């Protein structure tokens, strides 16, 4: 396995360390077959890979949400700030500053948008004023939410729900955010906006991000470092800039051939995927 620190220019503390984990669902389905990655403090790390590669599973393994899905980490370890967090319950992790934004939004349908956001502040004990200020901050990032603050989250559109989920996570004043497919289902403008928000939060508040994304293009544009996951294994990693230039990544993840982006209409035959490992 490559070491993240080796390539990063700034030598920073590694916040989150995943060592060779294996995950099994339902006692029989082996999904992660030894995944290791490092998330440096203050960086944006992207986790890329196709459908079913195991991105979500990796994130859930970190935030300990697997158990409620009948999955378990059978091998390896997850360390946050050098401490093994494998046994902790998700709430304790949130208090330590690790929060996950789940794939598929998962809003609290019957709560209003504002109440949804407020649940994000559940673990906080730094006073109502700070929370209220952060609520304003979230609203300033997502003005659409302010308009819909009183409506039940269950009735908001897909994009709005994604914003709610993001905003809710921000309300916990996290140190590390595990962001699962933030761009899914969002309008292009909004995708960009969300990544901008990620970037500015990262830069201004120093929040660390681990980002699972399908939208490789965007992810590599904003991330500092990337891992590519396939069929439960890390097949490649490197600084984002390097990955962007890698010809395989270009072809399979960025949809670019030598002549630049080609039209979807021109893909006339299904390509047999070339895989790094199989």
């Amino acid at each position, binding site marked *: 396995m490559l070491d993240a620190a080796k390539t990063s220019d700034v030598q920073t503390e590694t916040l989150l360390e995943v060592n060779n984990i294996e995950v099994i669902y339902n006692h029989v389905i082996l999904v992660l077959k030894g995944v290791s990655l490092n998330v440096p403090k203050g960086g944006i790390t992207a986790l890329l890979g*196709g459908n079913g590669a195991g991105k979500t599973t990796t994130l859930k393994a970190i935030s300990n949400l697997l158990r409620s899905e009948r999955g378990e980490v059978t091998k390896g370890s997850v360390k946050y700030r050098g401490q093994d967090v494998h046994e902790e319950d998700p709430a304790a992790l949130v208090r330590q500053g690790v929060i996950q934004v789940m794939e598929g939004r998962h809003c609290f349908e019957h709560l209003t948008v504002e109440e949804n956001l407020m649940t994000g502040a559940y673990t906080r004990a730094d006073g109502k004023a700070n929370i209220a200020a952060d609520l304003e901050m979230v609203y300033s990032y997502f003005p*659409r939410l302010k308009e819909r603050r009183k409506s039940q989250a269950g009735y908001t559109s897909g994009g709005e729900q994604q914003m709610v989920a993001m905003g809710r996570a921000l309300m916990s004043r996290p140190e590390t955010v595990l962001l699962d497919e933030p761009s899914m289902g969002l309008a*292009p403008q*909004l995708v960009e906006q969300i990544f901008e928000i990620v970037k500015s939060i990262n830069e201004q508040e120093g929040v660390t991000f681990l980002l699972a994304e399908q939208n*490789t293009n965007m992810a590599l544009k904003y991330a500092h470092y990337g891992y590519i996951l396939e069929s439960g294994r890390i097949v490649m990693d490197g600084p984002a800039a390097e990955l962007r230039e890698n010809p395989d990544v270009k072809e399979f993840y960025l949809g670019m051939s030598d002549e630049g982006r080609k039209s*979807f209409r021109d*893909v006339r035959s299904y390509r047999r995927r070339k895989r790094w490992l199989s």
Partner: protein
Amino acid sequence: MQDGYITEDGRKIGGVVMEMKNITLRFGGVVAIKDISFDIREGEIRAIIGPNGAGKSSMLNVISGFYVPQEGEVWFHGKPRPQMRPYEVAQQGIARTFQNIALFEGMSVLDNVMTGRLSYMKSGLFSQALWKGKAEAEEVANREVAEKIIDFLEIQHIRKTPVARLPYGLKKRVELARALAAEPKLLLLDEPMAGMNVEEKEDMSRFILDVNDEFGTTIALIEHDMGVVMDLSDRVVVMDYGKKIGDGTPDEVRNNQAVIDAYLGVSSD
């Protein structure tokens, strides 16, 4: 517009099959769709785009008969469509996929695809109870169609897998298979490529084009990936907060200032 034309790449587009006339849809105080009209022509790929919450999915729901608009009419095959239940709409040859995958999680892929063929299966309860005669023959006949579609979408290997276990992208494909199994005349796709990487989007695009080409299926498509929309669609409707702000060929839409402001932003290619 005249009655049909030939596209650049030689596909034949027919007359109007469906027309939305002044549709308005409200939920309590929220106006999801405000007086929108547009049409869909036979054989074309019609995209609906717009920011989140614009009312695109609601529009598909109106077409499916799941939402009943307060005002306006849906014309189908040149006649106003009477008020009907969603399943009756489906039986008229309109199939769809959903934005948040709505597969039947407790069933295998094959069974999911077979549900797409329900409208073709007419054997009685009694015959089914005994699994004799019509029921069995029908099962086999429809299974053949379903298998064909499974082959077409390249999901043979997961035929017997319960869908709950599938990764997101494959679920989307199964959903498409289920819709195709109905051999629809009009296929509604709600963000079929959300959550896919480029490679998978390319595959999906290929499927959509092939469906359109080979079966001549008319397709209405919601998608946020502008690359896909611009490349695939013949015409695009743009919605913004319930209003229609643009309608035309991809090129027209791309250069429409209102659309750029509301949706595309400057950096789109």
